């Protein structure tokens, strides 16, 4: 109840004309950087950071976090329309979002994504409001062994849901692990797998890999199959946006489950990417319409988007209360906090209640502002689909090339991206699944680090993964997800359609 009073006080700070104006400006800038692959919220934030130094800390953080919300929403646009995920957490959105857009339902796909994203974010904010102090405590329980268990859980909930040949899945997954290992190794400080290319010491950036695998690869498949012959008509139709949003509660159970997964992965340090993959994987397993997944099924958009945003939002809490930046954007914001003379950490809540609760209140408002603005832009983005393929294709190449370059100002990345494009084409053509490859690139090295840190701490004993109730539960859940479905399938129980209870 005390939190509630503080929140009301926060609203009284956040609701003012200049603050709302800052939110609108921030969100619009965020959408812009989010839509452009290669640019992201960190670019927007570091651009505006210098001009915020003269502001009140509350106003400044409202502006900066609005960029964050805008970019989170904007990131889904290219995933859905062009199969180019701008950030790791929107990869899972492409699985059903892109097929749906291709089949002429771009407006519906975008609106579904934004609607469920907003729902996820709201659940995340409510959670922060009610359980702030408790959540901060939970995050502290996570040592390397628990980290590893969370990543293991994310892998096992996702692996084996596709219908690809098992050996191709294995090759795809392990190649992903190897790519994640390229560069400087955290635990030993050694340089690994650079293949004689000195610059690879920085590792292979995820965005470079997915833009090639998904964006370019898909383009090559599309031109070969003459997909562009099938003209996609999408009228500018705000009514469709409205109908889609109103229809969202039909997926109530998926929304709730995905939000729960997202919050859990956001508080525990699994992060938005692991959350979105896990949520998609689980949705595909238990859904009555699981056979339709991958062909443009709305539930396949709802599940990852809700979880992504729930995780992204609840991950801001550890940043404030513990000083761990969950993302590059959070890191830049933290740098800003320090320049304003605020130190993130447990004391922030008691010392700067105006600031903290003003920020939390602005999360509610910022998200509402963001979803309204982004929904208004849906028909405009959807109209991009009407451009003829011969214009879109070179534009996509340019966007990918510029995006790959600007990730770390490196020409090598552009060349790598083109290589990944060819690989993506071959893999797609021959039924190698891309999702395990991507998941392994994103969290493979983190999982390996966590495993080896655990081994250091236990001096080589695997017992550390059963050392306490938390880690044992996580590991057991991981094994269960890995082993139970094939067993059930074996004895035929799984065949029966499962009711979404």
């Amino acid at each position, binding site marked *: 109840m005390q939190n509630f009073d503080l929140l009301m006080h926060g609203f009284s700070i956040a609701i003012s004309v200049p603050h709302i104006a800052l939110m609108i400006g921030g969100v619009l800038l965020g959408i*812009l*950087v989010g839509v*452009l692959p290669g*640019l992201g919220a960190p*670019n*927007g934030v570091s*651009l505006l950071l210098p001009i915020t130094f003269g502001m009140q800390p509350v106003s400044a953080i409202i502006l900066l976090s609005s960029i964050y919300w805008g970019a989170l929403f904007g990131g889904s646009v290219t995933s859905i329309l062009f199969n180019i995920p701008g950030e790791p957490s929107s990869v899972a959105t492409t699985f059903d979002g892109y097929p749906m857009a291709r089949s002429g339902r771009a407006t519906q796909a975008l609106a579904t994504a934004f609607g469920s994203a907003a729902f996820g974010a709201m659940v995340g904010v409510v959670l922060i409001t009610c359980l702030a102090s408790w959540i901060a405590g939970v995050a502290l329980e996570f040592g390397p062994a628990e980290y590893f268990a969370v990543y293991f859980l994310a892998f096992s909930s996702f692996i084996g849901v596709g219908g690809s*040949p098992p*050996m*191709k899945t*294995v*090759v795809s997954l*392990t*190649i992903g*692990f*190897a790519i994640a*290992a390229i560069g400087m*190794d955290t*635990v*030993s400080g*050694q340089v*690994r*797998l*650079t*293949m004689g290319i000195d610059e690879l010491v920085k590792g292979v950036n995820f965005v470079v890999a997915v833009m090639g695998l998904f964006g370019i690869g898909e*383009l*090559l498949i599309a*031109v*070969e*199959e*003459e997909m562009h012959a099938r003209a996609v008509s999408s009228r500018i139709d705000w009514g469709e946006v409205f109908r889609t949003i109103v229809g969202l509660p039909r997926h109530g159970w998926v929304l709730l489950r995905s939000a729960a997964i997202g919050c859990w992965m956001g508080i525990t340090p699994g992060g938005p990417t692991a959350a979105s993959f896990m949520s998609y994987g689980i949705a595909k397993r238990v859904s009555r319409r699981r056979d339709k997944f991958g062909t443009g099924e709305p539930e396949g958009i709802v599940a990852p988007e809700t979880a992504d945003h729930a995780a992204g939002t609840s991950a801001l809490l550890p940043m404030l209360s513990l000083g761990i930046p969950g993302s590059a954007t959070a890191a830049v914001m933290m740098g800003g906090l320090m320049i304003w003379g605020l130190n993130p950490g447990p004391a922030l809540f008691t010392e700067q209640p105006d600031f903290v609760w003003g920020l939390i209140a602005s999360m509610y408002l910022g998200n509402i502002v963001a979803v309204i603005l982004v929904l208004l832009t849906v028909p405009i983005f959807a109209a991009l689909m009407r451009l003829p393929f*011969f*214009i879109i*294709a*070179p*534009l996509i*190449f*340019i966007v990918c*090339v*510029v995006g790959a*370059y*600007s990730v770390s*100002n490196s*020409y090598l990345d*552009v*060349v790598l991206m*083109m290589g990944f*494009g060819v*690989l993506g*084409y*071959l*893999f797609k*053509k*021959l039924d190698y699944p891309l999702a395990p490859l991507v998941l392994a690139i994103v969290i493979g090295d983190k999982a*390996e680090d966590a*495993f*080896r840190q655990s*081994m*250091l701490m236990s001096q*080589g004993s695997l017992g550390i993964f059963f050392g306490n109730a938390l880690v044992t539960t996580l590991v057991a859940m991981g094994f269960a997800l890995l082993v139970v479905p094939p067993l059930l399938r074996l004895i035929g129980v799984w065949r029966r359609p499962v009711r979404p209870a």
Partner: protein
Amino acid sequence: MFSRRALEALTAAITGAFGIAILVQSLDNGIGWSSAGVESGTFPFMTGLIVVAGSLYNLARGWLRGREIVVTAVEFRRTVALFLPAVVYVALIPLLGMYVTSGLYLLATLRLQNGMSLLRSVLVAVVVSVGLYLVFEWSFQVALPHGLLGAWLER
């Protein structure tokens, strides 16, 4: 033009070669357990083994599966017509810089390949190049490559 057998073999060869490269490289890092815990070459070595084994399996399985054509000559020509200009585009970036090359690439594909009117294709090319400059260089201070041409102009 290309049978499934050929494509499967090509892909398995690529993945297999990557696997062998991983194996060789990971030997440099040490495998097994040392005083500093699990050595850094251990996981790459294991993934390398799995990739090589999996590639061999996929090669054999792909070879046994029918000879049906999965990419016809027409399809292949279309794909090359899209990809080849893009490769040239990327190759020219170090020389001419991102802005000029992007414009030329658009101009070439729109005008020469798809027969858009000269005026419109020039317009699109210029708008995109200038737009890139405004968004990246001017407002976000992300410098895209200017190439040797840029270096020469900035002398």
